[in-house]
């Protein structure tokens, strides 16, 4: 049984079809890289998995259960989420930001959980715990965002272009950190990116989306060896990863 699945999911925004019968699966402990241009529907797909977006047709399965039958608030608290801009609460100190989900669940050890997660992403709680987001660098803020997604110990983490706004060196650092954490915790992850190199580096398999449709899903080797469509071939050539 797969950890996450989309079955012929359709989503329209007015006249625009954002997702056009999208089907794919993410196995337990697997990281699926989702790649596509702006408007390809990749973020919309990601947001279906924690019910920030409700499909017009089709089903989303989370741990085998139809997501529509799950309580959205509980589902979100049980799913890690890292947005591109960090989305930290500017008026909360770092420790409180990271402790958000354990605190929402009423955990008495929310701060301990937060400090564990901070160490995981390489932030010393003593040094960073009491700072405000404004006092951090861009890379540190994204580390906090990742720590916040992990603090409650979710099985699934959704990442929406998490490192897209960082400079190349910081991005490489964070990618390394993310890879190590994933392996250590055995996380299931969906990582949306517009950077094919990042998708190849972090994803066990890659889904290529174009105009709301899945062009191809496969490992990096499969994509290189047998691009399913001219679009995928062109994408690989342009990105010079073929």
């Amino acid at each position, binding site marked *: 049984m797969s950890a996450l699945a989309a079955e012929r999911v359709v989503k329209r925004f007015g006249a625009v079809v954002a997702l056009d019968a999208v089907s794919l699966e993410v196995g337990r402990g697997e990281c699926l890289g989702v790649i596509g241009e702006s408007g390809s529907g990749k973020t919309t797909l990601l947001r279906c998995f924690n019910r920030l977006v409700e499909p017009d047709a089709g089903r989303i399965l989370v741990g085998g259960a139809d997501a529509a039958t799950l309580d959205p608030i*509980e*589902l*979100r608290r049980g799913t890690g989420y890292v*947005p591109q801009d*960090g*989305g*930290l609460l500017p*008026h909360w100190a770092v420790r409180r930001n990271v402790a958000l989900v354990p605190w*929402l669940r009423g955990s008495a050890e929310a701060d301990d959980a937060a400090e564990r997660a901070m160490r995981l992403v390489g932030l010393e709680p003593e040094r960073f715990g009491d700072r405000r987001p404004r006092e951090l660098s861009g890379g540190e803020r994204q580390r906090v965002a990742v720590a*916040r997604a992990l603090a409650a110990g979710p099985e699934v983490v959704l990442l929406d272009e998490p490192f897209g706004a960082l400079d190349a060196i910081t991005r490489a650092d964070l990618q390394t950190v993310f890879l190590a954490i994933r392996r250590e915790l055995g996380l299931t992850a969906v990582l949306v990116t517009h950077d094919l190199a990042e998708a190849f580096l972090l994803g066990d398999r890659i889904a290529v989306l174009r105009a709301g449709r899945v062009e191809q899903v496969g490992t990096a080797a499969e994509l290189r060896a047998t691009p399913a469509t001219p679009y995928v071939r062109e994408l690989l050539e342009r990105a010079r990863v073929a």
Partner: protein
Amino acid sequence: MGTTALLLLLAIQAAPSRPVVIASKPFGESYVLAEIFAQLLEARGVAVDRRPGLGATEIAFQALRGGAIDVYPEYTGTGLLAILGERPRRDPREVYDRVSREFRRRWGIRWLPPLGFENTYAVAVRRETAERYRLETLSDLARVGPELRAGLTADFIGRPDGLPGLARAYGLRFAEVRALLPAVKYQALAAGKVDVIDGYSTDGLIARYDLAVLEDDRRFFPPYEAAALVGRGLAERRPDAIAALTELSARLDVATMRGLNQRLEVEGEPVERVAADALADLGLTALVGEPTTAAESHRQGLARYLLDRRRELLRMTARHLLLVALSLAGAVAVAVPLGVGLERFSRGAETTVRAVGLLQTIPGIALIAFMIPLLGIGVLPAVVALFLYSLYPILRNTWTGVRDAAPDAVAAATALGMTPGQVLRHVRLPLASPVIMAGIRTAGVINVGTATLAAFIGAGGLGDPIAAGLALSDTHMILSGAIPAALLALGVDGLLGGVERVVRPAV
């Protein structure tokens, strides 16, 4: 807390055996007459509540009709033309009989017998203007009117027995007509800013500025006999008050009245002393020799004037602050939740906010006038009017602040499982608090300024000396209200700034 205070105020207003409420219109003679009424009643053992300078004809009469006040001095001609809306009549007796009968029949309001003098409208020009154009009568004025600029009170411009009727009767036209407050009219004429003004025939200021009064040669202005106008119910409640006021019948002649006006408006004597002397001279009260120092201190500079009245000013400032605090607290209690609710639920939010914004376009004095038929006079209608004025800045800022608060943080908090209520409480509201507080501060400062208008419905506060000072052309008196009001505005803003520092989250 705001609601409790309002209920308390309602209870106070509805208290059964209240004193006789005596009001006046905002000009010198009306102040003197009302004060004479008040002192006479007090001398006869009747408790009195004074509401000097309550408002122009419309406001004062509405207040009398609604039972908010019991007595104010009025003129028979005004009753006939402005209130009954009838055509002018020439004979004073006929006018008095007509208004007596009609007021009694329609509203149960009585005209007590006339006081003994007429105060009709007068049209005045500078002496040199009269000489240059050889002006003696209003017919002469009609000849050169198109070359002259008129500065007239709003009352006179609007009422049928004022400019519109006069223009018809004499074919009178001016190069320009400006609406001027009674207080600045004479100064504007003396300074040559306008050439023609309206005034009253008993006006003390006509002598002060050595003006030429033009004769009403076609007898357009109807007779304006002064008399006490008494509301329904006073006769049953306090027949002794009616009897006391009737003692004044036909006792004040034109010369006496002009003399009293002159003392008040030209010499700057306090109205209490002018009224007390008048009653003593008429033999209606014993003269209690208590020389006041107000008029003397008047000439010793503003600082001295303010110092001498510090008690009174402190009391008025406290009252002012009460009006502001009650109305602002009420507006915060309504507008903040409404602004938050609009963000969460409503598609018609912008429309709602704009509709509330329309309240802001109602002139303060008009809003306050609307309140009289609904809520009478005093603190309650003033607080309600100020409350309505405070809504918009608070509502607009709350809605905008909550809506636009850190969209990234709101999106992430939602994605991680905060409920909409938690997002509001922990993210939107704290982050919007500086914007909300800015709205409250704006409302507070506007409120302090607008509350000076509360004087016109007898709510007290620092508007009292401003309104009275305007009516009496007394700069010191105006400043004794305006300066504390300005300081109060700064103080309120500073205080709310302190509150803001406490509630604003450290970012």
